[in-house]
């Protein structure tokens, strides 16, 4: 048993990895916005990862992940031909996609991968998609060639100005909003501060804004309530009610606090992992 990795590519060396996984049943059901729960070893933790793409004909799904803790570090050691112990999904509600006009898809860091799948869905539904991607520098941008094929407009922002606009994606977004073009929706996927900033920018324009929350999950199927977040004053579960929510209604301060819950234990697991890796040579 297990799910074979049919392709592995280090998108950003030592940091961000893309894997194409043989999972025909999941591929046949996966839609933009869905995620999978992954476990790499018998003693490992279940973690959620967004499905960045799927190929139902080939029976594969694509995941893109940043090494942030022990499970992702362990996952990154696997190679083409190796198996991932558990891949469960597709989970979460798919992105709501309907022909609606122009949609701006904003992606930051590793979030660009998930945003890419959503942008693809909107493009296939006939929407005009403006993609805005941001990272610290040019080398940290993902999926630019795919996005430029899908989208009539690809806008880039980098902190250091090595590509596109020097500054934040929100500044680019504001330009687009100010240009007068009618925007049906803004979708933002990336770090919490970025999604919060995007929501703050769009609020005065009254543009519908959707964000994808990467909250802590344990089972991913609604059972545990670990991923709960406050949206519009109500407690909702990111795994079954989301992961996408109205960006103007999310309580970001609470989300940030909840994301830090297990930081100490996670660091402990990571340190043990690094030690063991060194021992194994």
């Amino acid at each position, binding site marked *: 048993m297990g799910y074979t990795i049919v392709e592995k590519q280090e998108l950003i060396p030592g940091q961000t990895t893309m894997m194409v996984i043989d999972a025909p*049943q*999941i591929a046949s*059901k996966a839609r933009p916005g869905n995620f999978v*729960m992954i*476990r790499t070893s018998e*003693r*490992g*933790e*279940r973690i959620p990862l967004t499905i960045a793409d799927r190929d139902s004909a080939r029976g594969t799904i694509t995941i893109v992940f940043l090494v942030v803790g*022990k*499970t992702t570090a362990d996952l990154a050691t696997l190679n083409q031909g190796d198996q991932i*112990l*558990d*891949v*469960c*999904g*597709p*989970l979460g509600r798919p992105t709501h996609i309907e022909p609606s006009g122009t949609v701006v898809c904003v992606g930051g860091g590793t979030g660009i991968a998930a945003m890419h799948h959503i942008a693809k869905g909107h493009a296939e539904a006939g929407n005009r998609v403006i993609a805005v991607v941001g990272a610290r520098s040019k080398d940290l941008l993902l999926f630019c060639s795919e996005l430029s094929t899908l989208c009539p407009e690809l806008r880039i922002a980098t902190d250091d100005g090595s590509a596109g606009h020097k500054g934040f994606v929100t500044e680019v977004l504001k330009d687009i909003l100010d240009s007068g073009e009618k925007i049906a929706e803004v979708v933002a996927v990336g770090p919490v501060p970025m999604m919060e900033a995007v929501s703050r920018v769009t609020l005065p324009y009254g543009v519908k804004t959707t964000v994808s929350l990467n909250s802590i999950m*344990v*089972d991913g*199927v*609604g*059972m*545990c*309530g*670990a991923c*709960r*977040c*406050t949206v519009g004053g109500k*407690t909702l*579960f990111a795994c*079954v009610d989301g992961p996408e929510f109205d960006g103007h209604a999310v309580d970001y*301060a*609470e989300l*940030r*606090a*909840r994301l*830090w*819950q*297990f930081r100490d*234990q*996670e660091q402990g*697991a990571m340190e043990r992992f690094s030690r063991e890796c060194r021992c194994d040579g």
Partner: protein
Amino acid sequence: MAEMKTKRKIRPRVAMPAQDALARSGNFHEVALGYSPEQALVEAQRCLQCKNPTCQSGCPVEIDIKGFIAALCDDDLAGAYDILRRTNALPAVCGRVCPQEHQCEGACVLGRKHEPVAIGRLERYVADAFLRQAAESPDACRAVTDLDACQPKRVEHRVACIGAGPASLTVAGDLAGRGISVDVFEALHEPGGVLVYGIPEFRLPKDVVAREVDGLKALGVTFHCNWVGGKTVTIDDLFARGYDAVFVGVGAGLPRFLGIPGENLVGVFSANEYLTRVNLGRAYDHLNHDTPAFRARRTVVIGAGNVAMDAARTALRMGSSEVSVVYRRSEAEMPARREEIEHAVEEGVRLRCLCGPLAFHGDNKGGLNGLTVQKMALGEPDASGRCSPVCLEGQTEHLPCDMAVIAVGTRPNPILIEATPDLGLNKWGYVQADKDTGETSIPNVFAGGDIVTGSATVISAMGAGRRAAREIARRLL
């Protein structure tokens, strides 16, 4: 047997050996240690072998209790196990977690004047002793069924079970024993449902569950883990794949919260999350497993059912020095099993009865540091027959705590329901199923367990599984 029935002095019930309370509150080993063969025989001989065994009708799956105890008295362990297995796919589990005091033992004739026969402990003894013995014999079939050899699977009949908890395991065992091919689809990475993620190791060791699951595999049942009913595969997909019937046993669902301020502070958990991290994620063995669990000095648990007791006792074992159970009514109304409450108190859990949670309080980093409770008194009996709690206006108390676990029940899980719009629901949003056959509003789709009743017991889920299996077999065979 004849001389057994002659008039004799009733001996006291044989006490269950248990780990010392102080020692066990620091480990996850099983608390109740089980009878020795001698103790089991002495207890078995207390049974009056009544002409009209009321214990049997007290059991949701109507185990032939008198029969299995008689076999045990005759030193026929295999015979006793066969009798148990005829109606109960998971005797080693039921012997440990069933609320026997309200079921078989509650109906035991001996219990009118004396202590009832310890039926649950005997069931556990028979299952453990027989399976230990059978593990050394190559005949796997005999170890898990009343059959000498596994019947060949009749692959022309195929049944799918969604969820691998007690209800589905019962359906699978029952149908596989009749030669029907059964596939079980489980969302998590390990079969067992609540038996694995919910009930802690110290009450139900996971190797006991694994042994029961292995028994089903030996019968030809196939388990597909990481398959989410309604997501990875829908009910329509299953029929399209050629299954004749589908059993839905997807379990309890979403945790309920209290809807009071501060509930999403860091350190406030649902019992499901806390227990899943510790049990399924093995966070109790955190040096060898990655899933983290919150460690707190002072823990409050809200609720007073078995799940609340499990959470409280788990928190002690995970290192909390103070653990309180907060409950609105008095100890007498607590829904948990007596034995579990007693075990918890022995281990050092403090019961704070007549306290209703009002608000959680946090520090400036969003972390929990206390709970305010409203003092209550008991009023008139309500619709449930229990005295209703009444607020004592103005009387509140602040309980300092750095972790809170909320164990106040569940709501229906939406995943399978949303993916199956034709599935009829009852007024509480659970799946509607015929009480005799378990059939839902969709022909040949059956349901049972917590997704039909809301949070209930392992044995009631198994009872529902049995009824559904009987009906499925009647239609197919």
